């Protein structure tokens, strides 16, 4: 989808940039708390319990009378699935108002810096993520200064966007390592060592598995890659094989990168108390928490864009079998992208409720002995398909 370049003045560029950044930030700040709520609920239902039920949907409050009537009729209230929804507001309030303890023996500067690094790395990545490969809408003509300017589905389209994303994502581990080291405590130290080893090891197969889309699309720009792989116009029909393998390897590494079960060794609750953030409380802990969930969204976005067909309906470049003239399913839509992200986020939660945790050495085994050889073979396969056929 070509974007027609509209000449903009510096002021217009800056203002539009700020608006787009704010839009993305607001969306993230909505999705992250909703993900935590979904986590409570999804895991709750998997474990045959209700999850968070307090706040809204109880016998008091705004919906209270309605719920009382429904309970009285012997029915579960309509809002019962959403009961506990406002808990994310309560969560945020709790984190903000909690006492922010810095241990006496901690390195104060680094201790404060670490969560900032983590959260900056996680959020900075969103600069290059394209939610829609073009202009989403135009600003109303009547608005001053920015009237008639395009609102694009991405903040910026760097031509080495993927490199930027990978580079910034690996900065996140510094937050974990520095925070743990600055805590000057034993459990965080163990957690951070695990985390460092884990992220360094899994960065390799993660990057190698992302090289498959790079190779097949011939670009490093997030938007171009996403469009090329989703529409599948120039792709070899056999390209589905390396993409399919790459997707699963990428998702596995994504779990490791975000420190989620079954690779949550860095914060293995039953072994290391709380891992690297044992000494953190209040909003400093909240930043680590935010970064983890933001990273989950980044991983989901990348998987969606490069493997699952991005803003088009069908994954793995199968979209080419649907003529672009068909209504709704033929064209790109922001909602396809969003729905796929939600599906992957659900997989994150589903896996957390199902699988036990790997041990440190086994984690390394999986990374170095299985995933890296597999991705190398997969990359080779992709290269053959790209150039030989």
């Amino acid at each position: 989808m070509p974007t027609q370049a509209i000449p903009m003045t510096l002021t217009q560029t800056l203002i539009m940039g700020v608006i787009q950044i704010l839009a993305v930030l607001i969306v993230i700040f909505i999705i992250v708390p909703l993900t935590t709520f979904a986590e409570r609920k999804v895991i709750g239902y998997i474990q045959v319990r209700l999850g968070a039920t307090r706040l809204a949907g109880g016998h008091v409050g705004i919906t209270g009378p309605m719920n009382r009537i429904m309970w009285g009729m012997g029915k579960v209230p309509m809002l019962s699935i959403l009961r506990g929804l406002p808990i994310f507001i309560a969560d945020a309030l709790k984190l903000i108002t909690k006492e922010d303890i810095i241990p006496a023996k901690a390195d104060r500067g680094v201790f404060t810096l670490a969560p900032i690094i983590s959260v900056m790395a996680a959020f900075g990545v969103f600069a290059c993520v394209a939610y829609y490969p073009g202009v989403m809408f135009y600003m109303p003509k009547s608005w001053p200064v920015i009237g008639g300017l395009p609102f694009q589905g991405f903040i910026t389209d760097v031509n080495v966007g993927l490199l930027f994303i990978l580079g910034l994502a690996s900065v996140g581990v510094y937050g974990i390592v520095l925070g743990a080291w600055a805590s000057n405590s034993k459990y965080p130290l163990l957690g951070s060592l695990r985390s460092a080893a884990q992220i360094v090891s899994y960065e390799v197969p993660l990057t190698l598995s992302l090289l498959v889309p790079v190779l097949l699309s011939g670009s490093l720009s997030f938007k171009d890659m996403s469009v090329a792989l989703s529409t599948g116009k120039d792709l070899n029909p056999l390209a589905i094989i390396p993409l399919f393998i790459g997707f699963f390897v990428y998702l596995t590494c994504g779990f490791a990168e975000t420190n989620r079960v079954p690779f949550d060794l860095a914060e293995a609750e039953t072994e290391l108390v709380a891992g690297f953030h044992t000494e953190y409380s209040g909003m400093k802990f909240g930043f680590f928490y935010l970064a983890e969930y933001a990273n989950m969204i980044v991983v989901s976005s990348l998987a969606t864009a490069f493997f699952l067909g991005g803003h088009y309906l069908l994954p793995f470049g199968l979209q080419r079998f649907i003529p672009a003239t068909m209504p709704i399913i033929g064209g790109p839509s922001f909602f396809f992208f969003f729905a796929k992200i939600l599906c992957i986020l659900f997989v994150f939660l589903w896996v957390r409720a199902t699988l036990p945790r790997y041990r440190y050495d086994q984690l390394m085994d999986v990374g170095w002995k299985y995933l890296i050889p597999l991705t190398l073979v997969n990359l080779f396969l992709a290269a053959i398909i790209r150039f030989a056929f």
Partner: protein
Amino acid sequence: MFKNEEMEINLGPQHPSTHGVLRVKLRLDGETVTHCTPVIGYLHRGVEKICENKTYFQGQVWTDRMDYVASISNNLGWAEGVEKLFGIEVPRRAKYIRTMLTEQNRLASHLLWLATHALDIGAMTVFLYAFREREYLLDLFEAFCGARLTTTAFRIGGLREDLPPGFIKKAQAFQDLFLDCVDEYETLLTENRIWKKRTIGVAKLNAEDCIALGVTGPVLRAAGVPYDIRKAFPNAAYAEMDFEIPTRTEADTYARYLVRLAEMRQSHRIIQQCIDGLPEGPVMAKIPKILKSEVNEVYHPIEAPKGELGYYFVGEKGGLNPYRMHVRAPSFVNLQALPKMIEGRLLADVIAAIGTLDVVLGEIDR
């Protein structure tokens, strides 16, 4: 320039997976455990000494507080030990009810073990599945004696009261449900690759070491020794029951997991036999209001969920209280196998080992 130093770390007494107040002093080389010392005593109340100052009737209350997840087993040991000391014969119906409740308690205890052990290794859903069934069992205990955890279920000479109306029906409903539930736990764990990786070959303790350290219960049976008090020295109504002793030979965490699951199925079988063959008759023997002992000593072992639970009583002439009372607590003895199991292994295996030993600190510290 670089110093190579071992790190000493305290696992507990406040730690999510030390199941109470166990403190394990670990010396770590990286993540490898080079030295391990369990430190106990944070929950010491002096139960044995207290029981020496209580009458035989009063003492049973304190046994609830030892292994608080299997209090009915502890009650059984106390009641039968005292009955042995005084030569009291318990009516057959009481024996059957005792057997049934003890086995249900074994299920509750094993379910708690499964729940926490799986949670320690990271499988959090099993925890809630197991607690769902345990809740049903606790409701049964509540129906029987009014308490869910500290039951004081039995009286010396039998039972205080017969089963409440509807108890058998509820117990049967649980029986019909339970085997499917065990299958459900197995679908989540038994063939799970990560579960197998985390448990196979972990925390091994072979039969010789088990016997040398006095380890009993599922840990011993998973090493291939079919030693179970219920068969070796039958008490209660176990002599009339038809059941098997599940054993494995691998002697690792996975084998213990399989043995305990098989034991749950066997307990289910025993409960079914108790329900089907429950005899009619009184539930209380005729015993004097005040028990005064002769000079006598008795050691009475029973098979608690954790292993051999033995009560040792010494009576004195005309004494209302035991002159000396000692408990051979299975968790206490089993815990000394911990260093042997984990030295030279990784930190994550410590958690698996503590879980697989199934220790309860109330019983260790007494």
